[in-house]
């Protein structure tokens, strides 16, 4: 089938060893990319190379391997920072998006949030951008409120503006919903929040892997994302923060690396970002994330985005023709990320994914770690297909055929 001209599908697919495996005797059709993506051999090789050839601790070993490891680790930081339009001094390596939002909770929140403060998030957030603020609110005696949604799943900006009159201290919002696919106008949200005096946190877990993202253009104070959702290893991600803010924050965890000097009765802190990276860094995975960013940069994020819009547009058009197909979120592929949540008649999402699995098709089913949103949608669960660079129009066709088979089994 015809593919977008700018992405050489055959070459891309050849880079991913896992795509050669069979599932239940069928070609693997991996459509669970919003949960985690597969890894190209360039990333796997970078990990192997580090552990095989220059494994050493960073920043403190004055020997050859230590210097090479330090150079590779800091070079990964530079490339990942550049990838999202930030400076390396603004990029803290974390375990992923969840640790990043929790870092803001502890290192910024514990110092600056006061009793009676208002924290604001939205109804379309992943639990990683809700629960840390709930815990912070509880600890500090602050209040957490939610920006509402408008059908078919966009932020209700009127309710946002109203909340801003109460001068919140933190506004946390997702760039792209992991369920609805909605791409929020985070530039506007952050501008409104800043005028109200709030510090802004953008969950970019579903945007950084899939479209060009520029930290300084968004105008947020903090940007969080995960490496494993963008071809990188698990256990590595980043928090990007404005330099001034990072400097005035307290440390996150105490230990080695994050200190300048330690005395028996007190300590002084290293500068950002090292102040937030206590203990031995996740060196290998940071290097792996650097390789992932190189891979995505070589394709071009504009091209990645175009490819997903094409797949999503085709999926919406094809699947919508099927009996009992119900999709959630904005209907226009141009306005959403490459995730498609849906239900088919009265077939529960878990039954559907069991049936599709037999066809070698991996989708996600459940509440997608977004229970307040599920409640708003009025469904206990949805199925979700999410696309990435190695998915083809054939994968969409396979999904459509799998749904037809499920309809036959369930006699829909």
């Amino acid at each position, binding site marked *: 089938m015809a593919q977008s001209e700018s992405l050489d599908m055959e070459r891309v697919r050849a880079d991913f060893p896992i795509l050669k495996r069979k599932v239940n005797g069928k070609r693997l059709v991996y459509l669970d990319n919003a949960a985690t993506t597969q890894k190209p051999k360039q990333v796997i090789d970078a990990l192997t190379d580090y552990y095989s050839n220059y494994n050493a601790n960073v920043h403190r070993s004055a020997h050859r391997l230590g210097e090479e490891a330090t150079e590779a680790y800091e070079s990964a930081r530079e490339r990942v920072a550049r990838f999202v339009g930030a400076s390396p001094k603004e990029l803290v390596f974390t375990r992923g998006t969840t640790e990043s939002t929790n870092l803001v909770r502890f290192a910024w929140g514990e110092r600056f949030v006061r009793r009676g403060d208002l924290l604001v998030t939205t109804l379309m957030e992943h639990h990683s951008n809700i629960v840390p603020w709930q815990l912070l609110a509880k600890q500090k005696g602050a209040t957490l409120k939610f920006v509402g949604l408008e059908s078919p799943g966009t932020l209700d900006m009127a309710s946002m503006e109203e909340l801003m009159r109460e001068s919140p201290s933190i506004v946390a919002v997702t760039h792209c919903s992991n369920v609805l696919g909605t791409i929020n106008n985070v530039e506007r949200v952050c501008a409104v929040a800043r005028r109200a005096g709030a510090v802004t946190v953008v969950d970019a877990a579903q945007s950084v892997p899939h479209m060009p993202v520029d930290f300084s253009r968004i105008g947020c104070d903090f940007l969080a994302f995960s490496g494993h959702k963008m071809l990188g290893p698990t256990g590595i991600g980043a928090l990007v923060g404005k330099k001034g803010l990072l400097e005035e924050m307290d440390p996150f965890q105490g230990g080695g690396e994050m200190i300048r000097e330690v005395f028996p009765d007190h300590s002084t802190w290293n500068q950002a970002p090292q102040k937030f990276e206590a203990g031995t860094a996740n060196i290998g995975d940071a290097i792996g994330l650097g390789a992932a960013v190189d891979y995505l940069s070589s394709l071009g994020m504009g091209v990645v985005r175009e490819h997903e819009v094409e797949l999503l547009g085709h999926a919406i058009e094809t699947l919508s023709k099927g009996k009992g197909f119900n999709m959630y979120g904005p209907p226009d592929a141009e306005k959403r990320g490459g995730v498609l949540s849906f239900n088919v008649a009265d077939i529960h999402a*878990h039954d559907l994914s069991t049936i599709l699995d037999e066809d070698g098709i991996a989708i996600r089913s459940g509440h997608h770690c977004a229970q307040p949103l599920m409640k708003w949608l009025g469904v*206990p669960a949805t199925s979700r297909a999410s696309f990435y660079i190695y998915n083809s129009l054939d994968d969409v066709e396979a999904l459509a055929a799998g749904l037809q088979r499920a309809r036959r089994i369930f006699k829909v």
Partner: protein
Amino acid sequence: MSSADIYKELILDYYRNPRNFGKLDHFDISAHDINPLCGDEIDIQVKVGEGNRIEEIRFFGKGCAISQASASMLTELAKGKDLEWVKTLSKEDILKMLGNPELGPSRIKCALLGMKVLKMGVYGFMGAKLDNSED
């Protein structure tokens, strides 16, 4: 075993037309649990009759075909049985009741949710009753 076998007539029938679905006006046992991974929910209510027999039993909930059909079939099986019988129920009993479908580790939780809720309720009731008899 293919899913055409897992979702045989029996399970689909109980999913679409669940027996003993609803709530009791008067009950002695009420228990609720969810499967946090999938969001499946089951509530079971039991009216206990003479000799600790299950006189009436109803369930309600939402979730996948396997969790809902399994709970419904279990209520049919449990009606008239002694509460002690509930204590002896095993995973194998439930799978046998469902016709031994081949279920992976995540889906087996769906199949067993109804049994878990019924056991929770029965154990709680028997514990409470023991305390009362000490008065």
